[in-house]
């Protein structure tokens, strides 16, 4: 073990890319990627969240990520792994926990990759359909509501401007019944102003 000169201790966290040409013993935590030409040992206390490229991997701890080994991958009784393994030799002993895809190389033609994509595609359209009406519905209502609110505000302004112009011609003409029928809403204001004109 003394020759396996690289050790990542229990309290150590390595975040990044780790590469080398010697054995690596992980008791701590490594996140990122590991690339070795020799053997990776993940001990029971070790946690690896990385994509791993090695010659050999012996996993007694936790590995989350994909492993590509040129020789072998072994998951021991204490080992837990989630990810894909690609190696000519893969050993998973009783008690080990593993979830992922295994590729031993020679069986490539027999691996159907279609079932997995189909399962993933089916829920996507349903999610997209529900999302679209939910987004379009509120956006359609918003522009319609402010439009009518602005229309009545503009309405009374022109009628007030017309009202003062109307009274002067009416008294000389003497035709009171002619003015009321033209603007029905403006009649009330026009009538009050007529009274003032008569007093003067």
């Amino acid at each position, binding site marked *: 073990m003394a020759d396996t*000169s690289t050790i990542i201790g229990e309290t150590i966290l390595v975040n990044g890319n780790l590469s*080398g040409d010697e054995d690596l013993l992980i008791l*701590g935590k490594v996140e990122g990627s590991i690339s070795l030409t020799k053997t990776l040992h993940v001990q029971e206390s070790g946690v690896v969240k990385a994509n791993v490229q090695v010659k050999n991997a012996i996993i007694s701890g936790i590995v989350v990520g994909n492993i590509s080994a040129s020789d072998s991958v072994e998951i021991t009784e204490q080992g837990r792994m989630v990810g894909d393994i690609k190696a000519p030799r893969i050993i998973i002993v009783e008690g080990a926990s593993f979830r992922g895809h295994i590729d031993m190389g020679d069986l490539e033609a027999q691996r159907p990759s279609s079932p997995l994509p189909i399962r993933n595609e089916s829920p996507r359209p349903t999610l997209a359909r529900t999302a679209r009406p939910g987004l379009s519905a509120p956006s359609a209502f918003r522009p319609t509501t402010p439009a009518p609110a602005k229309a009545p505000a503009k309405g009374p302004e022109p009628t007030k401007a017309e009202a003062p112009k109307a009274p002067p011609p009416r008294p000389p003409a003497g035709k009171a019944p002619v003015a009321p029928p033209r603007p029905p809403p403006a009649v009330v204001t026009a009538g009050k102003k007529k009274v003032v004109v008569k007093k003067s």
Partner: protein
Amino acid sequence: MANTVIGSSIVIDGEISGDEDLVIQGTVKGKIALKQSLFVEGTGTVEADIQTQNVEIAGAVTGNITATDKVELKANCRMVGDIKAPRILIADGASFKGNVDMD
């Protein structure tokens, strides 16, 4: 005996942090943050900002060091960067370029 050793053929590009001693015989680039001691051995190369309690350098370090206790530059070491620590030792034969702050 330190628990963590980065061997001479190992290259780490990223961050290393932890609560124990770290011995570097290989190459580390990025950042090192420890609560204990860092030993950069003769074959070790560090291009990183370092925050530790103690640092002993016999190899090559490029970067700034902040130590809460002591920084020791041994003979034949090469160090470029600033050092901030209460105690700083520079041995005969050490090569150093940078600022020193013992406040």
